[in-house]
């Protein structure tokens, strides 16, 4: 039993050997390394697309490809890989639809955003995160904000929230879902700004 190979514990060695990752490990990696890059990625996509509404869709496509690649082997560092995928997707669109601003695509290296930045200060990130969350909470519609506040700040259960607000649990779920969307956009889409 003590000699059994434990893929969870031996994750580091497995990565070196390039074997397939466990899905759970890929999920953790995705949340930790990829999602924080969303604001920079979105900025790059918006600069490169005439129709900025499409940026969200392409971002989603980039995520799917990065995720699929990671299931085979986690690409590290994540940042250059993510931007290479993004550029390839944009180049494909240039070939098919000619809607991409070509300088932006070609300038990826010059933009410097694809480089890995190990110095990114995680303290700054943690400090700014609360501010982003709070700002997003303040912007929510009233009932939605109330539901999120009762859940995340007051710590009530969905059932208690339903009673307190005089609505069904289904409606609580819907309010909270709107909250999830807004908080995710605030955390990842807006990203963490460095203080001046």
């Amino acid at each position, binding site marked *: 039993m003590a000699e059994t190979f434990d893929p969870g514990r031996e994750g580091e060695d497995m990565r070196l050997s390039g074997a397939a990752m466990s899905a759970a490990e890929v999920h953790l990696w995705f*949340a930790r390394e990829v*999602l924080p890059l969303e604001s920079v990625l979105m900025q790059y996509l918006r600069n490169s697309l005439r129709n900025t509404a499409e940026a969200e*869709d392409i971002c989603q496509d980039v995520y799917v490809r990065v995720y699929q690649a990671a299931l085979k082997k986690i690409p590290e560092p994540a940042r250059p890989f993510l931007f290479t995928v993004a550029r390839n997707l944009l180049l494909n669109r240039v070939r098919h639809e000619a809607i991409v601003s070509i300088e932006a695509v070609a300038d990826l290296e010059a933009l410097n955003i694809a480089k890995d930045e190990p110095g990114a200060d995680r303290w700054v990130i*943690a400090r700014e995160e609360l501010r982003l969350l709070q700002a997003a909470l303040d912007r929510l519609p009233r009932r939605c904000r109330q539901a*999120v506040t009762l859940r*995340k700040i007051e710590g009530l259960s969905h059932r208690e929230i339903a009673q307190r607000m005089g609505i069904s649990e289904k409606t609580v779920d819907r309010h909270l879902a709107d909250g*999830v969307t807004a908080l995710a956009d605030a955390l990842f889409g807006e990203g963490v700004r460095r203080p001046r």
Partner: protein
Amino acid sequence: MSNTRAAEIRAAASLWVARKDGTNWDAETQSAFDSWLAQSDAHMVAYLRADAAWKRADKLIVLRPTRARRIAETLKDALPVIRRVAVAGVVLAVIGFATVDYLNTPPGKLYTTPVGGRETITLVDGSQIALNTDTALRLDLSGKDRKVWLDKGEAYFHVTHNAQRPFRVYAGERTVTDLGTKFSVRREPARFEVAVMEGKVAFDAGKAANRKPIDMTPGDVLVATATTLSLTRKPPRALAESLGWQRGLLIFDNTTLADAVAQFNRYNGEKLTVAKSAGHLPVVGTFRTNDAEAFARVIAQVFGLHTAKTGNTIVIKQ
């Protein structure tokens, strides 16, 4: 934006996160969820994104009010109006309120707030005065001039200008005269500060100072001690942040940890102290004035420090 492909999938993912967070998650729902996830990797990445955000939103718990405040609010919510009067003494002692002092001889009607309290007074002319923590202020509107004496603490003034009825704030020897404006005045035993947000005020250091009144314009911050006087200009954002207390917030933008701790101690009976070696760390963020404990917890987490509570003091150390 909401009609993009990605937005639809994200909305669906958010709903799954919300349902999973709830009380009615059963085997049937689980299998519906599993098959939704299996439909496409786009569903999976959208779910990972929504789930990560919802987990990180746990941090919002630091905004939870302290227990004393919650009791006060619960009492206010729960009791009918008539009974509320009976507990008013309790509630007001907790959250702070204007009180009239009949015994003192100084002129004017007295308004005070306890440590951690906050109060806004609206005058008949529409002017507003917001009192910050641990503040005592007297008000006399009976004469030609509108007079305020700031005995201690900090107040923010939004004055409806009336050239016929000057609005003056007295703080010991010093006088601040409104010339149509929004400004704040803070008086501590050894330090006096005026900040102008809008319009104009005139500052008079008093007879002993033997100097002409100083005209101050928006952005000007004046700090006077017994022997020094300095006038600096701050950007609007910094001024707005310094007024966060009106919403019960302390807003720090690269404030040193030592200064942040000093600010918290103005608002709470429970005091914070910080080890000298950590005093220089830069703090960025928004915190509830009344929850020093949450502040200490977050700071410790962010900087990898430790907290220890002894009696009424929380020590932040390395």
